[in-house]
């Protein structure tokens, strides 16, 4: 459990991989390392978004609430970033995150995250790429669902 380990992790996360090492170190230093037990809620849809997470160990289920109950939209694992949409969208959490296994995650608070992105165009592009990717996935999912209900 030392800063070095988290520093290594952050270097491998696409959004942060292009920022300079001192910024990466600072990110590691300023974030909290948290442990979630299996089944523990990380955040739920509707919460005010105050931070993003990087998964270090374990898997996290992302679900969205629907009238028919929660719908699993994604399962994320090591090196994935969770909850970054809320940070930039200024809207309540759109989805719920629950630890599928025991999870170790690095929590980066909203203002630290925003600060890093603001100071680093490459990170911003990486973030846009992730968002675009996710949008494409969601659109595809919608299309499937629409086809299914017909």
């Amino acid at each position, binding site marked *: 459990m030392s*800063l070095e380990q988290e520093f290594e992790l952050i270097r491998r996360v696409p959004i942060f991989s292009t920022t300079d090492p*001192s910024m990466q170190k*600072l990110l590691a230093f300023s974030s909290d390392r948290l*442990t979630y037990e299996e089944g523990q809620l990380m955040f739920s849809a509707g919460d005010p978004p105050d931070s993003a997470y990087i998964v270090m160990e374990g898997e996290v289920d992302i679900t969205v609430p629907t009238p028919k109950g929660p719908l699993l939209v994604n399962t994320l694992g090591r090196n994935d970033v969770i909850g970054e949409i809320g940070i930039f969208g200024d809207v309540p959490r759109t989805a719920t995150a629950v630890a599928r296994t025991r999870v170790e995650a690095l929590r980066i608070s909203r203002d630290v995250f925003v600060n890093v992105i603001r100071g680093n165009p490459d990170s911003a592009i990486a973030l846009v790429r992730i968002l675009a990717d996710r949008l494409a996935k969601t659109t595809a999912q919608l299309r499937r669902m629409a086809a299914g209900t017909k």
Partner: protein
Amino acid sequence: MERSLFGFILRYSKREQLLIVPLVVASMLIYFVTLDLPKAIINEAIQGKRFPEASSAVAFLKVHLTLPAFLGGGSLHLFDGFPLHQLPYLVALTFAFLALIVVNGGLKFQINTMKGWLGERMLRRLRYALFDRILRFPLARFRRVKSAELATMVKDEVEPLGGFVGESLITPLFLAGEALTALFFILFQHVYLGMIALGVVVAQAFIIPRLRRQLLTLAKERQLGARQLAGRIAEVADGAIEVHAHDTSNYERAEISSRLGRIFRIRFEFYQRKFLIKFLNNFLSQVAPFLFYLIGGYLVIQGKLDIGTLVAVIAAYKDLPSPIKELIDWDQQRLDVQIKYTQVVEQFTVDDIVPPEIQAPIASPQLPGAGGVRVSGLTLAGEAGTKLIDSVSFEVGLDQHVAILGSHAAGTGELTQMLGRLIVPSSGRIEVGGMDITNAPEAVTGRAMAYVGPAAYLFPTSVRDNLLYGLRHYPIREASYEGAALGEHEFQLREAERTDSTLLDFNADWTDYRAAGATGPDDMELRILEALKTVELEETIFELGLRSAVDPAHYSGLAENVLRARNAMRTRLAEPSMRGLVEQFDAGKYNRNATLAENLLFGTPIGRKTFDIENLANNAYVRRVLRETGLADDLLKMGHKLAETMVELFSGLPAGHEFFERFSFIKQDDLPEVKAMLGRVADAGLEKIEQADRDMLLALPFKMVPARHRLGLMDEAFEARILQARGTFAKNLPAEMRDGVEFFDVERYNGAASLQDNILFGKVATGQAQASARIGAMLHEVLAELKMRPQVVSIGLSYQVGVGGGRLASADRQKVAIARALLKRPTVLILDQAAAGLDAGSQNRLVANLLETRKGCSVFWALHRSDLAERFGHTLVMERGRLAEQGRFADLKGGGGALHKLLNAG
């Protein structure tokens, strides 16, 4: 209030001034005798003029009056005296001389103290009178006058008055007496020379004050300038947010600088004139001797005057300028003080000041009975002759809940303020329960009515004091005094009486428990709790209580209860699902969620003196412990690594980056210095660095929390050595430092730590998701089970709210104000947008709770959200100062009238 200063002085201190006069006269007489006595000592006793023979004796203390010729001449023998020989006569005379000096000194002491008292009493009276007038200002006045200016006037501007009052009448009397004597002496010696002296004095007395008139105008301007400066500074402080938000700091700098410039200009002129006058005055004084020498000399040469007289005249004139000069100074001071007085009194003279009867203290006034609120023809004229409220009339029962609605500028604010009798209506009547309260004393309105405005003010005391503030109309229980305190109290009473100040005792218990439905302080807490629950503030106060560090001696059973809660908490934390959430203090273990300082002390520092965390490395005893346990060098190395890491992490950040504030051990301003020091360390090696650098490095690791900072600088071996040092620290702690630290002891209450820390007896672990929230919930449960909640709330009530309640959130401030009004159980509760700052959900709940609590009691509530009016039995709809319609909300809503318009306006 007296328009002129002397009117004020004569009216209130004539008697005391007159009492001093005989003392002054006596003092002068004795003074003349002490001047005369040395002559007798030299001529008679020493030179022995009256002792022609060794055996001759002279009567000492013979009282022998020679009557003037118009009384028939002759003499009167009152006392024959004691016959004394030469030596005893000398001794007797010299001792008489000493006695006279002592008596005169005593008299002067007495005169000066009496003058001092007199002045201070008058100052006290004036200040009290001014403050009394502030309290009686109509509220509209406060919109035009700056609070800081009022404060300067009462505090600073009238201050010189105290010094002057004692001098005001006696000094001119005394000095004029002296000057006249000298003048008459000269006149008596020689008429022409006397005329010269008189001429110079008259010139001085005539010209100088005339020149000074201009000085006075300048002094007036200066006073005004200084007062406005005080007002402007307070304004800038009040508007600090706007200054920062709009980058107007330089605008403000320029403004203040121009003010200072103007004051300087006035001062500059002032000094120039002042010293010119001084020059003239000195010149005039010096001209007289010139004339004496010239004219007197001529007369002597002519043989019309003998030289002895000329010398006597010049000597007498030498004594003349000093009283004259002092007299002129006195006159200067008089004018100065007179201006200050007039200016201050002008500011405090208001035409529509509230008459004193309205605020007269009444122990238990007749309050309105049952019935209704009847308002008829209520009108309020605005400043420009417009009618802010125009003949409003309505009648509702005292058991009704009334909503007042209206768009912006409809007059709902003015209407509620008039209902609360905070502004007196221009015409019309307000009757409550059959009693006309339009002009009722505040003793009635302040008890029967409670008004809460949109931005209520909290006084910078505790939450409890703010809540009870509405119940402090009149002392209910006298304070008891004994011994010295009784004497002091009686003295204070006498002085208060002499200066026409209030005789009500501030130390008495002013809280009217009965009005709140309680019998005393103890069940008052229950009433407060109810009010807090109604406004949903109980939870907030409970949290504040948890965060307070209190002396358990003030709360009975607190220490035991906290220890019980600590145990209950330990049991719960031992459950598998909770394990690891809190790292508890253990004398034999290093706590990785606590700072190194806490681990070393194994306790909480008391106060900021001995073991303050910020300065721990500078404490001589801590250093000794570190040296003895061999930790000093390791800590130094650790500090060095920490400094390197910090420099590496933070050097790249732009200036002013928030990370410095939040994460760095080193302040941004210190970073270059630390860098330079690291350079020195690289050159000289860690062992050879200077003391200052050592101190700096040694201080760094103390704030490190291994679990949070994860810097990997501590291993288990190091932890073990800290534990060893912990033991040494406690064992050898010098007795005089014993009160500097409260050790962690599972069996003891820690008075230096907050209640929450006491109950947890450990640190919430970082790295456990939602640990704080879960611990918080558990804490609530435990305290509820142990029935400790009321006690914690009671501790939270002692929380200091800060200036203007600034340490509370604005919504909480409003809640305190509403609770304060509720606690009073008023006949009529009036709220003017009192909950407008709360979020919608809280508003809904607050309205529901409050109306439930006030069921069957009168409530008037000016609402900005019309939908809330549905819950009220009656609705008044205002439209440009007029009552447009009234009735049940449901009926009016669809009626197509004013409410319909209001609801559909947006």
